[in-house]
């Protein structure tokens, strides 16, 4: 691939660059998988942030790493280990109850050990697999979205759409249970069932997203657009809609940036745009909060 050059300020050149961008099959695959994964992460991330479970989400992303390396060490398909481990641990934490899911000492200890296990499988993989090399490890840790094939991209998109469907089905009771668990339980919402189910979805999302941005950066894709959306609007449903939009924007901008500047890895550019979104949201809301609203019309009544 010859390094494409982005010429700023010249519309035809940008248009040409854009056509050039979309002509590459690897970019099409990345866009397909990336868009689906980003939309899913944005939706799931909204609930993760709302429920104060970012640390649990972070842990599930580390589980994704360990699961993937265990599958590599065992010589089975990487995604099998990925999803089995993340969904299993997600349900496990969920079953321990709401307290465990946000008890940072329990999660911290479990996470430390999960990472230790990851190192163990890495050692097994690099020692006993003849084809074992560090690049597979790096791909799991940091993702390789430009290296995703057509089949894997379609699978990732289908899985993401299915997970989004599951999430949308449980969205209303989940929102209720997240905002006020006691009242939701009294109204007959199955709070005890929703917790594990939601963490299973988070786990599956971790497995999905680690293919795009890598296991280590997943927490950012979950947290940054969602936290930005929650800062920008107080209304739950509007924030829930805004979060995936911001996540997909981060994905597209990040992919474009990584394509334009080949020395920048896409995982970095995606995270950088997502972080910038969050920073912008913090700045906007802090400025809005501190500057007194001079021409505010008093609300009658």
């Amino acid at each position, binding site marked *: 691939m010859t390094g494409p050059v982005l010429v700023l300020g010249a519309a035809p050149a940008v248009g040409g660059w854009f056509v050039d961008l979309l002509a590459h099959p690897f970019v099409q695959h990345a866009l397909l998988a990336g868009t689906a994964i980003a939309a899913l992460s944005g939706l799931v991330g909204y609930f993760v*942030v*709302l*429920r*104060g*479970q*970012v*640390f649990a*989400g*972070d842990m599930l992303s580390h589980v994704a790493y360990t699961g993937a390396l265990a599958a590599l060490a065992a010589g089975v398909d990487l995604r099998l280990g990925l999803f089995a481990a993340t969904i299993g641990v997600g349900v496990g934490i969920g079953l321990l109850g*709401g*307290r465990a899911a*946000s008890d*940072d*000492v329990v*999660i*911290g*200890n*479990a*996470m*430390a*050990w999960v*990472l*230790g*296990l990851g*190192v*163990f499988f*890495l*050692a097994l993989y690099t020692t006993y697999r003849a084809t074992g090399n*560090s*690049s597979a*490890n*790096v791909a799991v*840790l*940091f993702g390789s979205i430009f290296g995703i094939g057509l089949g894997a991209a379609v699978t990732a998109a289908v899985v993401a759409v299915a997970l989004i469907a599951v999430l949308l089905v449980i969205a209303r009771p989940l929102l209720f249970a*997240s*905002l*006020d*668990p006691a009242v939701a339980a009294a109204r007959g919402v199955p709070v005890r069932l929703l917790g594990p189910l939601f963490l299973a979805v988070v786990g599956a999302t971790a497995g999905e997203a680690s293919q795009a941005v890598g296991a*280590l*950066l*997943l*927490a*950012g*894709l*979950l*947290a*940054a657009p969602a*936290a930005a959306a*929650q800062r920008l609007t107080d209304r739950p449903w509007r924030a829930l809609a805004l979060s995936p939009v911001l996540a997909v924007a981060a994905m597209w901008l990040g992919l474009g940036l990584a394509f334009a500047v080949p*020395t*920048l*890895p896409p*995982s*970095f550019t*995606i*995270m*950088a745009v*997502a*972080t910038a979104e*969050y920073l912008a949201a913090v700045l906007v809301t802090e400025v809005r909060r501190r500057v007194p609203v001079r021409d505010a019309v008093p609300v009658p009544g």
Partner: protein
Amino acid sequence: MGTDGGLSWHLVDDVRIMLSYHFMLNAVRAGTIVAVVAGAIGYLMVLRRQSFAGHTLAVIGFPGAAGATWLGLATGFGYFGFCVAGALVIAAIPGVGRAGGGPGGLGGYGEESAGIGVVQAFALACGFLFVSLYRGFLSGLNNLLFGTITGITDDQILVLLVAGVGCLVALVALGRPLLFASVDPEVARASGVPVRGVGVAFLVLLGLTTAGTSQITGSLLVFALLVAPAAAAARLTARPVAGIAVSVGLAVLVTWLGEAVAFFSPFPIGFWVTTFGFGAFLLATGYRAAADRASRRPGARVLAGSPT
């Protein structure tokens, strides 16, 4: 390391053989310093429920080291620079400076943890960027993330010792107000303790500790030494000073065991240290559950209760 000498049934001889290698001697020295500091600071981290911040600070060492390697500097500068800067950034996230991490439970608004998560992911992304820019230190990448017991130099031990003593002195200096602010921030604030300032100072201290520890255990596993012995100690005793002592003792034990077993096995130190640490945590949790059950039984309260 398993090729350097097999394990026999004469444990004393084995230890002597292990320590006859200069690199292992250095590893044990460095490990001991790191364990003492991590055990003490980690206890307060657990008490303040700032494990996520601690994990993030630990991870921030990785871009620091990768960036320093890319620029051709000593990795130590990168670790300490990034970890302290990261501590200040995290302290700037609204509400993080206080203990407890705010309403993190169900129904709580997780802005603080979201902010920490963003900091962590961005730091890791930067680390990956530096690694990509540097090109071709893939085996180095694994060592940065997961640590190695080989190749710890005498100079590094000196730096570690200075940083470790500095951290412990600062911890003792902060001592009472920090403990007060951690256990009951409201009352502490009311009685004139600068809770916010103490919180920021503690985060910087945590950053310094993780920076020192990262160089030995790697960025991803520092956290094990910070959280596991401390959490085990917190389940064994409720008294802070005793808790810190138990935490330090467990951390040293876990580190020594991990280093020794890593020396005689083909698996890296990170795996063993986390496994022993997690084991200690599970044992302590089991002990606490059993003790609680025993004390709840009628008539047993006198036996199990009031050891203070």
